[in-house]
């Protein structure tokens, strides 16, 4: 009996002790410098994606919407940032039922027969049925890669949102003619968001056969939209990870959830001779530092140097702010980019913080409805290499 009691006492002590020992170790060790010995060493894969001579990016449009307050009013009214983008009743998927009550099927039923050739007529219908069509803009960029041989190759990154605005921008920069002449090899869609993807019929009006590279993660509506817009070319779903394309150019797909029910983003890497790595992004929802860190781990690039950035860095797209964005502003210095050509969802406020912090931000000309010279605006061009 006494032995049994002693065993029980031991068990009571032991169970209590396990908890104390575990909690003690958790508290003392878990955030100590000693924990770092458990982290695997960074292994650089140094994948050779080749090298190119230069990259020239023409900003066809960085203005995704014209008034923040209008867009955010729509988002607020429809139920916030998690609402499915096809339900907002934004153009082109309008059914006339009002904010937050739209659907892909209703919207497409009204315009499908006009796509892609009669985009202007389709847009007129959208204007009647959609919420705030006048606020829609879009993001698109022309990326010209000069190979080491001197041969130049052209790609589109994204295809805007408003048919009217995208059409206007395409004409302004001569994209329509390039598409007609089949000078543009492919359209890379960075992600499924309205402002990067919904202007697709404008591209297809001029080249319905163009090869599309979309990131893994598209929803069924997005995949159907490609078909409904009258695309007759090849659609390549780019898998998560690194995907070399031509010498000196690769894309990387990140498996990330994004607001308004979108999943996955594709961004571009270029290895420019004698300069280093250039990153070209649509929105960069993965974060520019994550993008740079991924390049460091995955790719071999000239001089082991981060040379330049172009595109949206998705920091304060709605000119909102959060202390975590300051972490980015503070930390970007560690990556020592030579040239930063940011715009779009970077946010004017962030661009100004970059300038204040002394980063090499390439300022723009603030033309064609771009709002500030603090970043590269519509019609501006940046060349790396």
């Amino acid at each position, binding site marked *: 009996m006494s032995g049994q009691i002693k065993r029980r006492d031991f068990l009571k002590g032991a169970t209590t002790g396990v908890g104390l020992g575990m909690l003690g170790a958790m508290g003392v060790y878990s955030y100590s410098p000693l924990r770092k010995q458990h982290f695997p060493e960074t292994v650089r894969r140094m994948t050779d994606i080749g090298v190119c001579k230069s990259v020239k990016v023409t900003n066809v449009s960085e203005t995704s919407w014209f008034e923040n307050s209008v867009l955010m009013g729509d988002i607020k009214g429809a139920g916030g940032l998690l609402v499915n983008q096809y339900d907002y009743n934004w153009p082109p998927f309008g059914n006339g039922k009002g904010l937050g009550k739209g659907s892909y099927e209703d919207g497409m039923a009204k315009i499908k027969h006009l796509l892609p050739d009669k985009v202007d007529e389709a847009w007129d219908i959208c204007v009647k049925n959609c919420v705030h069509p006048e606020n829609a803009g879009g993001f698109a960029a022309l990326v010209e890669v000069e190979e080491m041989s001197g041969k130049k190759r052209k790609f589109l990154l994204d295809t805007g949102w408003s048919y009217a605005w995208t059409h206007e921008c395409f004409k302004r920069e001569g994209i329509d003619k390039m598409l007609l002449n089949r000078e543009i090899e492919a359209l890379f869609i960075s992600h499924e968001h309205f402002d990067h993807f919904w202007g697709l019929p404008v591209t297809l009006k001029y080249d319905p056969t163009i090869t599309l590279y979309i990131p893994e993660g598209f929803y069924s509506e997005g995949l159907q939209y490609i078909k409904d817009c009258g695309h007759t070319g090849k659609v390549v779903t780019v898998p998560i990870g690194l995907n070399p394309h031509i010498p000196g150019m690769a894309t990387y797909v990140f498996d990330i959830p994004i607001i308004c029910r979108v999943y996955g983003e594709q961004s571009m890497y270029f290895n420019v001779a004698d300069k280093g790595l250039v990153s070209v992004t649509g929105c960069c929802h993965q*974060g520019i530092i994550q993008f740079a860190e991924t390049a460091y781990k995955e790719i071999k690039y000239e001089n082991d140097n981060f040379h330049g950035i172009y595109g949206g860095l*998705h920091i304060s797209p709605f000119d909102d*702010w959060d202390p975590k964005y300051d972490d980015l502003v503070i930390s970007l210095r560690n990556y020592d980019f030579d040239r930063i050509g940011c715009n779009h969802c970077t946010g004017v406020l962030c661009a100004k913080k970059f300038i204040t912090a002394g980063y090499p931000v390439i300022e723009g000309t603030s033309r064609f409805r771009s709002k500030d010279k603090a970043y590269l605006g519509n019609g501006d061009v940046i060349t790396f290499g």
Partner: protein
Amino acid sequence: MEKFGAGFLEERKLVKRWSGPIPAFVSIALLFAVFYATWWIFQDPRGYMRMYTPYVGYMYCRWWLIMMIWMVYIFNYWPFKRSWLESAHPLQKGIVLTAVSVGILVLLIKGFFEGFLGNYGLAYFNPEQLEKLPGITSFFAIEYASLAILMFAAIASWLSPAWVVAFEEAPWQKMAQPAKGFSILMLTFFLSTLVYFVTMHPHMGILYHPWQYFTSIAPPYWEEFADTVSGNFHVSWIMCCTVVVWLVETIWERYPFNLIKNDWGRRFTCFFGIIGIALAMHFFFYFAQELTFGEAIRGTRRGFAPDWRWLHVGEMAIFMLVPALFLNFYFGNWPRKFSMPVNVTIRTLITIVASVLLYIAYYKTSHLFLGTQKGISHPQQFPMIPMIWLVNLMLVQHWFMDNWPGWKMVPKTAAELEAEHSAHQEQIEAVKPTPKFGLGLGAGAVMGVVFFFVTVWALPYFYQSIDLIK
């Protein structure tokens, strides 16, 4: 003298309406049905009110939890009389008490935070004041104000119950309601305000450009230590405190703090012990993410950002709260037949395993029915919202409705109460500081450290073996 609901939770006997596990299954089925219906009405981004913007829904969800804690734990159901609590139908009680909790909730948010504080003290509590600033849209004005108000809630949801659980309502434990309730409310609200000013206010102070150097410490003092300027560093340990309070109160039965005989010694040890345990969780959950997701990188976004990692610590902790409350509310705090330390250990193990399974199930499936998106680190999605929403409904069912419909409430007899208190006291007194106990304690502590390092070793392999997001 009318005692209102003082001791009501301990003095009620929940009698199963049917034998076996049927009552638990029926009550849980009803709970989930109500959860999904109310989720659709209030929170779901596809639903009716779509409050999951996310911060608006989060704020209401969080403060509703505190309203119920105030009503039950601090005010002991005052002004509802004991006779009504014992005789009214659970549905009637559920509707009336829920309506009162929601009424106070709206009054507090609209009246106190937005109306009073936001108009006469700190502009960031009031969306209309924020909208006067250039460049701030209505949407973000509401989101920022909701964020500030819910940050206050995070602190209050730790301190309000902590005063009852750890300090045993002292020094007002013998005072009648509502004087006792107001005394505890005033003190915990005051403490919450202090903690808010040194944890969350500096976060709000750098939410704007330029940083508000004149009114808050910028950059915040935790920047170097936490590897971020974000207040999520504090959200993390405060959330852990909230969870630990309830672990101590439910599945741990206040063990081992209840071994301390000296009243004030026990109370202080319990209060600061909760903080100590929470800090251990706070650091370990961060470390666990480093071991599984990889090292955090300051300045990046989402899953690799230190600010998100700290936030996710709080989210991980919440996943522990749900099974602990389930075990306590619906399974009678099983097991009860062993000694207190053994019971506590088994319940803790069950809770840990269940929380891991819940975590995996949540990230694998929640986007299929909550109207959210797949993925771990969506910047606008917080698993705390559905988890706390579920906890709120569990509290409504358990505190307001006596676990209806699976159980019915009958008052315990004086003899039953006496027997229960004696048994509980015996369990505590059975844990004696004998040499064998001390030996076991030492051996257990060594084993605990070994378990910790085994866990650290195993975590990366465990994470690689599951595919959270397909």
